[in-house]
């Protein structure tokens, strides 16, 4: 007899067997079932059993379309439900910022929704392509029959069993095997593999690190060996240049190099003798005496002389260390050059003259000439300050121990402990501010991205006139410095600002709306006003890219009967995402550090008193990490050590996020080097 609806049992040789003994699969639009490998293994007669017990469940191929329709409807409903969920969650999150975790859930729901969207569009597109939807309800009948089977079919099974086995053992699938999985399984497989891959990836990094250390050690050892050997085997000129740098070059008539080496050595020794040694000596303690007071009885005044300055000891100590490293490197270079010169002259080969050296700087060594200044600037004004500020996180530097009137000292990991101690006010504030920072960055990035693209598409639509005018108006926001426009906008929405006043004079409201006074409202406001700032950028950026999309893609889509929305999902979106993937990442990072919008609009407020204060600065509901950092550094009780710790944390957060995105986003993994 026939069965209706869901299959629960199958009739094999007159015996009713439960479905769990079978694996179902679809092949060429037909459904088949076969015993699971486990059952086959337990069954007495192997081989034969597998072949004879294959059954076929035949469904009409038209049915396929209908399933698609239903599936599309189903996903559509899920999609709507998810959207509603996300909306509710947003509202909850926005109405009570304390429930930030709800906001995090919202992001997950949003992500899930996005995943759901893909099969939805696939199914929908198929329907459009194939048939008109048939929604009339109808019954499906299944009949279980023994299958005669073909070799092809058996081969197919074998592959399935292999895939199954691999899946159960978490082994990687080949590309062909992977393609046989259905969509859900593909995602599952990918996700599983991603997480399974993490330990291996970490291990790989450790191995790499180990190799790096080993490599470093080996190269240091090699260098030392080379230095010793050079001294042993080298000529007297070379030996002298161990002490007087550039001597070897001078003897080989490379007077320019000799001069540079020699001057560098003199400068180094001079610096170390006059200042460097002293700074370095105090580096360990960061100073002992801050000030000496003296009373002058004749003038009747007390004078104060400053002795040690922890800040400067830290700074100049660091510079001295940089200098020493540079000197060691140069000295090594000097030794190496002497050896090479020795070898060259022994072989009687030509040695470069100073003139040739200079010419080389404009030719083969041109990159050195060109990079020298930018790199020096980068090292002195970016690398050095950042290392300095990270070091500050390990000291007790704050407004009390300012390093000038009261010295500060090393404290190890105390500051990091403070912020990471679970349950402390500081860690609570850090956690919540971090959460809001991420939410802010996600929202700001994606809302700007999609709306900006939308605006660009509107302006670029065929037949829209005065394109330049629209564009120019939007571009004004970029041209006019933000501190003017945003400060003005901030005042527009103040309690006494024009917006409130106008609304009140119209009689719409009785009391001013606290745009900046209410945490939730302020958060919405910064997000909305950020659109005002961000859309023009995206509009400009995407205009060019949108124009680059080959027009014939759209034309062929149109002839296929795809509507505008489909065209957007099928052509525009994938293209844009592929091309601007790295840009999205960049703008996410820059939104995490988007100081201007938050600071100029709300200065981080309204204050959230539950978090207490750090450095005399009470963080507020719209405070993101970077404005918090600013408040802590410039507050009345500037707490530099904490600022440094938080800055380091921001860095860690950003780099971890970038790492994750880089790992899973294929278009960003593009090797930057292409030659």
């Amino acid at each position, binding site marked *: 007899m026939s069965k209706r*609806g*869901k299959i629960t049992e199958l009739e094999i040789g007159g015996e009713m067997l439960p479905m*769990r003994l079978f694996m*179902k699969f679809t*092949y060429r639009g037909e459904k088949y079932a076969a015993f699971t490998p486990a059952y086959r293994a337990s069954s007495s007669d192997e081989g034969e059993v597998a072949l004879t017990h294959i059954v076929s469940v035949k469904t009409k*191929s*038209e049915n*396929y*379309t*209908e399933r698609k329709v239903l599936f599309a409807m*189903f996903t559509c409903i899920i999609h709507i439900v998810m959207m509603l969920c996300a909306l509710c969650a947003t509202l909850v999150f926005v109405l009570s910022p304390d429930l930030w975790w709800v906001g995090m859930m919202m992001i997950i729901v949003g992500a899930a929704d996005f995943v759901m969207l893909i099969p939805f569009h696939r199914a929908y597109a*198929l329907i459009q392509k194939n048939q008109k939807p*048939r929604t009339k*309800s109808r*019954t499906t*009948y299944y*009949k279980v029959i023994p299958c005669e089977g073909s070799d092809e079919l058996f081969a197919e099974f074998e592959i399935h069993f292999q895939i*199954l086995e691999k899946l159960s053992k978490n082994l990687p699938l080949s590309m062909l095997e992977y393609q046989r*999985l259905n969509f*859900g*399984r593909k995602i*599952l497989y990918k996700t599983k593999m991603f997480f399974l891959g993490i330990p291996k990836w970490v291990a790989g990094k450790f191995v790499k690190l180990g190799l790096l250390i080993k490599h470093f050690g080996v190269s240091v050892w090699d260098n030392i060996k080379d230095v010793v050997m050079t001294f042993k085997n080298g000529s007297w000129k070379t030996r002298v240049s161990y002490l007087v740098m550039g001597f070897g070059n001078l003897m080989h008539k490379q007077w320019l190099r000799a001069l540079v080496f020699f001057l560098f050595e003199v400068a180094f020794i001079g610096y170390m003798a006059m200042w460097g040694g002293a700074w370095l000596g105090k580096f360990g303690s960061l100073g002992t005496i801050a000030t000496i007071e003296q009373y002058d009885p004749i003038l009747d005044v007390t004078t104060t002389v400053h002795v040690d300055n922890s*800040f400067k000891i830290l700074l100049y100590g660091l510079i001295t260390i940089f200098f020493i490293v540079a000197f060691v490197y140069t000295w090594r270079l000097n030794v190496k050059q002497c050896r090479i010169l020795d070898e060259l002259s022994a072989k009687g080969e030509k040695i470069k003259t100073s003139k040739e050296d200079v010419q080389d700087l*404009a030719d083969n060594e*041109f990159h050195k000439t060109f*990079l020298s*200044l*930018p*790199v020096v*600037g*980068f090292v002195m*004004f*970016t*690398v050095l300050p*950042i290392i300095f500020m990270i070091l500050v996180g390990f000291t007790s530097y704050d407004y009390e121990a300012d390093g000038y009137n009261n010295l500060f000292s090393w404290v190890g990991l105390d500051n990091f402990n403070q912020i990471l101690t679970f349950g402390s006010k500081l860690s609570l504030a850090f956690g919540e501010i971090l959460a809001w920072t991420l939410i802010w960055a996600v929202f700001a990035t994606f809302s700007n991205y999609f709306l900006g693209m939308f605006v660009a598409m509107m302006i670029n639509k065929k*037949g829209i006139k005065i394109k330049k005018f*629209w564009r120019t108006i*939007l*571009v004004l926001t*970029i041209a006019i*410095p933000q501190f*003017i*426009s945003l400060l003005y906008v901030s*005042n527009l929405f103040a309690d006494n600002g*024009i917006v*409130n*006043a*106008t609304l009140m004079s119209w009689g719409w409201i009785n009391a001013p709306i606290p745009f900046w006074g209410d945490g939730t409202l302020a958060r919405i406001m910064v997000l909305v006003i950020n659109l*005002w700032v961000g859309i*023009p950028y995206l509009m*400009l*950026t995407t205009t060019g*890219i949108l124009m680059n999309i080959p027009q014939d893609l759209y034309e062929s889509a149109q002839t296929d009967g795809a509507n505008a929305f489909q065209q957007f999902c099928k052509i525009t979106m994938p293209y844009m995402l592929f091309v601007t993937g790295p*840009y999205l990442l960049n703008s996410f990072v820059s939104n995490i550090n988007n100081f201007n919008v938050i600071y100029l609009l709300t200065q981080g407020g309204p204050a959230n008193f539950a978090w207490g204060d750090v450095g005399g600065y009470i963080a507020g509901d719209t405070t993101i990490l*970077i404005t918090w950092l600013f408040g802590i*550094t410039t507050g009345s009780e*500037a707490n530099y050590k904490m600022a440094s710790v938080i800055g380091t944390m921001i860095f860690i957060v950003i*780099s971890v996020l970038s790492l994750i995105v880089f790992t899973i986003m294929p278009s*960003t993994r593009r090797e930057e080097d*292409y030659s």
Partner: protein
Amino acid sequence: MTDKQDESGEVFEFYGTSPSNGKSTEIEILLPEGKNADEYNDLPVPSFGTIPRYAEEAPKKERISQKTKDRIGKIAIYIVLSLMSLIWILPFVGILLESFRCESTGLAGYLIPKQWGFDNYVRLFTFQDGIFLKWYGNTLMIGCVTAIVQTAFQLATAYVLSRFRFKGRKLLMNLILVFGMFPGFLTLILLYTWMHDWNLTDANAPYGLMIIYCASSGMGYYIAKGFFDTISKSLDEAARVDGASQMQVFFKIILPLSKPIVIYSILMGFMAPWGDFVMATFMANNASAGYNVAAGLQWLITDSMKNEYYTTFCAGGVVVAVPITVLFLLLQKYYVAGVTGGAVKG
């Protein structure tokens, strides 16, 4: 109704992803990519089972003509764009209008002045012995120097990283990437103290700022590098064969081709100092003579100054924004080329 539900249950299973329903395991395979179900329609239909019958298809609904649809779409777009333009331009109109307000100097609850006049502009240029001119001069100076040095640094870094392969290149690029992720403010306090040692803060802050802006500007090489990457290497090679040195290749062949990126860099370098108030306020540290316009104008609407100087701030905003905007709009083309390239190249 029941049938339908059964159907959907079946459908769900068809696509189901539940891996853990008891002991059974299932594998479903979708149709191979690129084929559609029609191809299988001619497969033999088994002799048993029932072939379902469908109702006749409903007649097509009369569709609105494509032309009308287009027109409606366009009108909608015009409405949206007009609304957007209004919102986008409102704050700027507001600043302009308020800068002409004479009857009061603080925040007011209306846009259109009751008494028009240039009082605020006069005040702007005369208060504190015309300190605004000093700010303006400071900013111009910083802007010009930064524009030149930054362009030189960025082009040099980008060109080298684009064309040369040398030891440490990858390291340098990674270092720039990693250090670029650090929040820059963190170094404010250090840079201040350091610059203070050289007497480049307070009233001399513009010079200190200049150094800070310029020194690390090579880090923003990405866009220029993307540009150089697109210039064909065969050009340089041909020149090299003809005996040109690397320096000549750059200055004689590449640079003339790089006008858009040079202008973009100059534009960016020039504009940035006009908007930076954090660094500028910090470096000037209360010495208002060392402010740039951003720091100065921002100071005018701090809480204690706002009542007296709000409209002056608006006037200052106009004075600052107009030239910058004109310059920007004139060079907009290059800016677009730059940001688009930047977005694509990452």
